[in-house]
């Protein structure tokens, strides 16, 4: 039978439901011909800031049981050098999602405008980086801030806007609804969990920034629960991620209601992890006689599968929940 992996996320169409998560696949230029990029739905590039950032001092990455902690600190060449020097080197077959991270609302607006060029397929608004001293993470902890930021970014780009949520928010569903109300086309979650490791000989935290982000299989069940909750609450498509290592892990996220998934830490263990996961999804679909990947989306939910790609978000938005001048907080109370 013919298997169709084409994935529609509102205005964004991908050749496969598996995306390379930001910060775990570089710029798509590092793996040469050794990884079959045609199997990868898109690469979410390492978070970009207005000015170059040199990143945090080492150590930046340690292993934990079934996972890793990182504190890279958004090392990146800055948006201008990325567009001039890096973007042209990304293989043309690979769709590019630009992850943007700022300290102020103006930073995000400028970044969104600069990144809105034809080679870029979508923007991912990083409101959840735990490893920089500026206020990146703070945006994603607060529904009102997320609403305002999303609205501002949306107004400064024609590209589909993905808002990447942090699992560290007190109520991730409220933040997701805020992003949707702000105009997000797609919600992605989760970024890393704020975590701590202590060097007992030195009697100090391992990381210079004290806390760092935990990812990998260790956090997968929690991420999956959050994706389930958010997918049940919002009308826009959801990209689910958090510790996916195998095709079965990815299938769980799809069945929880994610329309696509992103793979992160697994790329660091095996740079060919995504093609292997896509092959595994395809084998599962063949075995289960599933012809289109969208049939799996939400399959484990009580309300059954849903095709979130096909304009559901639009219809939800038209139902009157989005008066521009109503206070964001009031909206979330009515929806949550």
């Amino acid at each position, binding site marked *: 039978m013919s298997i169709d992996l084409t994935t529609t996320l509102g205005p964004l169409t991908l050749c496969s439901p598996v995306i390379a998560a930001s910060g775990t696949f570089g710029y798509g230029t590092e793996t040469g011909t050794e990884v079959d990029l045609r199997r990868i739905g898109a690469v979410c590039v390492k978070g970009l800031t207005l000015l170059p950032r*040199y990143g945090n001092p080492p150590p930046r990455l*340690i292993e934990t049981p079934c996972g890793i902690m990182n504190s890279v600190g958004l090392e990146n060449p800055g948006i201008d050098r990325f567009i001039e020097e890096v973007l042209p080197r990304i293989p043309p077959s690979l769709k590019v999602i630009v992850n943007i991270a700022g300290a102020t609302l103006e930073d995000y607006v400028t970044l969104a405008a600069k990144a809105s060029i034809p080679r870029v397929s979508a923007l991912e608004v990083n409101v959840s980086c735990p490893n920089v001293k500026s206020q990146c993470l703070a945006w994603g902890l607060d529904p009102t801030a997320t609403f305002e930021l999303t609205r501002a970014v949306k107004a400064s780009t024609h590209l589909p806007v993905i808002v990447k949520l942090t699992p560290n928010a007190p109520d991730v569903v409220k933040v997701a609804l805020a992003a949707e109300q702000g105009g997000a086309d797609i919600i992605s979650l989760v970024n890393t969990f704020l975590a701590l490791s202590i060097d007992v000989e030195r009697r100090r935290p391992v990381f210079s920034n004290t806390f760092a982000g935990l990812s990998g299989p260790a956090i997968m069940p929690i991420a999956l629960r959050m994706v389930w909750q958010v997918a049940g609450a919002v009308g826009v498509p959801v990209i689910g991620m958090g510790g996916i290592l195998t095709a079965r892990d990815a299938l769980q996220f799809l069945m929880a209601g994610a329309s696509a998934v992103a793979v992160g830490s697994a790329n660091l263990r095996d740079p060919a992890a995504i093609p292997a996961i896509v092959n595994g999804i395809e084998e599962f679909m063949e075995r289960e006689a599933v012809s289109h990947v969208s049939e799996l989306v939400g399959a484990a939910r009580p309300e059954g599968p849903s095709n979130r790609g096909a304009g559901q978000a639009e219809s939800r938005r038209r139902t009157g929940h989005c008066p521009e001048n109503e206070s964001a907080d009031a909206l979330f109370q009515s929806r949550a």
Partner: protein
Amino acid sequence: MWKQENAEVLEVERLLDEVFRIRFRADRIARDAAPGQFVHVLCSHHHSPFLRRPFSINRLDEDELSVLFKVVGEGTRLLSRVTPGQTLNLLGPAGRGFPVNVSGAHVVLVAGGMGVAPMPALAHRLLAGGNRVTAIIGARNARYVFEADHIAQCGAEVLVCTDDGSAGARRSATSMYRSLPDKGDIAYACGPLPMLYEMKQCVVTPLWLSLETRIGCGTGLCLGCAQPSGYTEDGQVVYRKVCTDGPVFHASEVILLEH
């Protein structure tokens, strides 16, 4: 460019209680490998340890390569228990190795402890290129002197030194280097950071250093293995990636701190 290869374990040698050499058949990787590059070994098919473990290429043949390592944690413990006939997923050759396109030069190799690991392949290649090689091998005691005979058999002049004088001279590898009447044309060093720091202070020729650090992906994706490399005009530290910019760096490319 690195490749991934399921490599067959041909031989596991236990050189000491906790020091092992594993020889692999890995023709795709061995074919392109250069001394000083590393292989990134998947030590577990389960979730833990999650990441691969990097090892300098120790000896290199047409379709075979070996790694020499000390058991220091869970990954190396698992690796030490493999048996011939098993296959392990290797990623390599990874990183930038030592410059080996020199000829007619006198090259001095300085190894401290397990830093001797890349020296056999390096000495072999340099000698084949028509160079004269002097190898200084420093270790804590006679039991920890590895590869001295092998490197000598390749045709290098080998000078052994130990902390307690149980083999060779009782001095450090760097003090041995300082005492050389002829310091050669170029020096390559691999060993603990304090040794590399000292080498950088006392060297009088061009010097290349192989750094050992924790490496995440090994392919430049994660930016986890940052090595301070210089400063911006406004004093910010600039980093280089040990996994793809190194692990071998020219001494001027890295900032090493006194320990």
